[in-house]
């Protein structure tokens, strides 16, 4: 196959819409991940023996489900749940279809990250709230999440980067975005300019997220 002659000047016009698609996929997915994975993480840590509402059975079952969601490689997970994706969004290709497996992979991942962030808070700090007459929910909102925020933000950055990676894999089912562009226009069609453009943009994206994440975490720790 003869390489399509894309000049360097044309690369940005190809990258821009792809970046937008990646942003949409990852953004919507992260919204779902935080909305569901966050509470799940709070639940896991608080149903554990040292939590605010110890409940071994609930804890074990949530942990099990959460581990299940993280045990499959993303590509395998995506293929496995195709019928489910079809059921929920009515299609198995495109951005909508990519969001379902990405969210399913991201929710338990984020839950674990939140759990880790909250587990490190000394129990005594939670007791401070209880001893002052706070309800358990108040303790979670005013103490646990406040103290755990730096760890949660660090986890968010980690999760965001993982989702960008997954969005590239999801490009394989025609989801669009930078990964799709790199594989279809860059790799398959020997279009070096597009390939390099995608790689540079992805590297930059990840670096910027990690850098900003670290900065925010530092500003949150006192």
């Amino acid at each position, binding site marked *: 196959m003869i390489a399509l002659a894309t000049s360097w000047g044309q690369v940005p016009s190809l990258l821009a819409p792809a970046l937008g698609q990646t942003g949409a996929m990852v953004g919507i997915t992260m919204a779902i991940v935080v909305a569901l994975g966050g509470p799940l993480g709070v639940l896991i840590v608080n149903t554990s023996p040292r939590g605010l509402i110890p409940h071994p059975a609930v804890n074990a079952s949530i942990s099990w489900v959460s581990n299940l969601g993280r045990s499959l490689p993303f590509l395998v997970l995506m293929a496995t749940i195709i019928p489910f994706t079809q059921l929920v969004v009515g299609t198995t290709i495109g951005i909508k279809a990519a969001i379902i497996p990405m969210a399913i992979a991201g929710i338990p991942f984020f839950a674990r990250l939140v759990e880790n962030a909250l587990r490190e808070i*000394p129990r*005594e*700090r939670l*007791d*401070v*709230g*209880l*001893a*002052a*007459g*706070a*309800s358990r929910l*108040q303790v979670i909102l*005013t*103490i646990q999440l*406040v*103290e755990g*925020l*730096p760890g949660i933000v660090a986890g968010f950055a980690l999760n965001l980067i993982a989702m960008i990676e997954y969005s590239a894999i999801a490009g394989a089912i025609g989801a669009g975005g930078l990964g799709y562009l790199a594989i279809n226009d860059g790799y398959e069609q020997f279009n070096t300019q597009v390939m390099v453009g995608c790689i540079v943009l992805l590297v930059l994206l990840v670096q910027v997220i990690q850098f900003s994440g670290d900065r925010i975490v530092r500003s*949150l*720790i*006192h």
Partner: protein
Amino acid sequence: MIEIRGLTKRYGDQTVLDGIDLSVAAGEIAAIVGPSGAGKSTLARCINLLERPTAGSISVRGQDLTSLREADLRRARRAIGTVFQSAGLLSRLTAADNVALPLRYVDVPDSERHERVRRLLDRVGMLHRASYYPSQLSGGQQQRIGLARGLVLEPPVLLADEPTSGLDPATTASMLSLLASLRDELGVAVVLITHEMDVVRSVADTVAQLDHGRIVTRGRVADVVRGSDSPLSRALLPTPPVGATAGEGGRLWRLRYDRDDVPATWLSQISRELDVDIAVRSGLIEALGDGTAGRVVVEIESPVSEERIRAAFFARGIAAEPGDGPQQEPDHLQTSALVGAGAS
């Protein structure tokens, strides 16, 4: 002020607290001592109802807290301020916000909130550190912030769980004088859990010794130290180790101030009365309560009869027992066995 009756806590078939009776009056500092594993921490968590007792009652101002349902219990807990062992400050809140934390769970107007936080920070001498974060404060400063936070809801009872553990002597002294001023000026009833006997001696009015979940000794500190020769009494006022063995013909005597009116010149008085030389080998004498408490080891050279020696000391309010030598002087060992390694 706080009345604990028959407090029992079991985990499965393990009984951690076994029928604890304890009452602390307004304006009293009651120390609770005991080795690690004696149940001190569990007792603390039961008193502020972070743990539900298996049986027994805890009453503050006549209201039994254990009979309350969850929502009422939460409100009732506010009658007992807690100072946590390692201060337990929230790392992401300033000193002032840490002190204000308990106010977030009650309905207090903003203006009063600020006023109260200011007043308490001032009381613990930390007003100039109001906007500092815990990581910028020393251990002693953190502990004072923790104390201010424990007081912000103006509780009639303060529960202090090892508030001086890990603090240097000067910081410990300032923390203790704060506790004493709370007792004297605000009439707070303080339950002070500690393993430091110096702390008990310098600030507590009463002491209870916890062992295997039971209170084995209980009384006013001065009475416990003076009135008995119990392990707790020896731990509270230990005699420093005696150096060399007794000389030829000499005999060691272990003396304990038994009354609060021991004459200050007892040593010369007895020396003259018995016409013997008396060597002081070790001792600790200090003011306690309304009088003086002391433990002294002396060596008496001349062969005076035991009865005469005993009677001479007894007449001056001192209990005397012949000691068989320095190797039988393991007060420091008894102390460590009694109070354990500290943090529970």
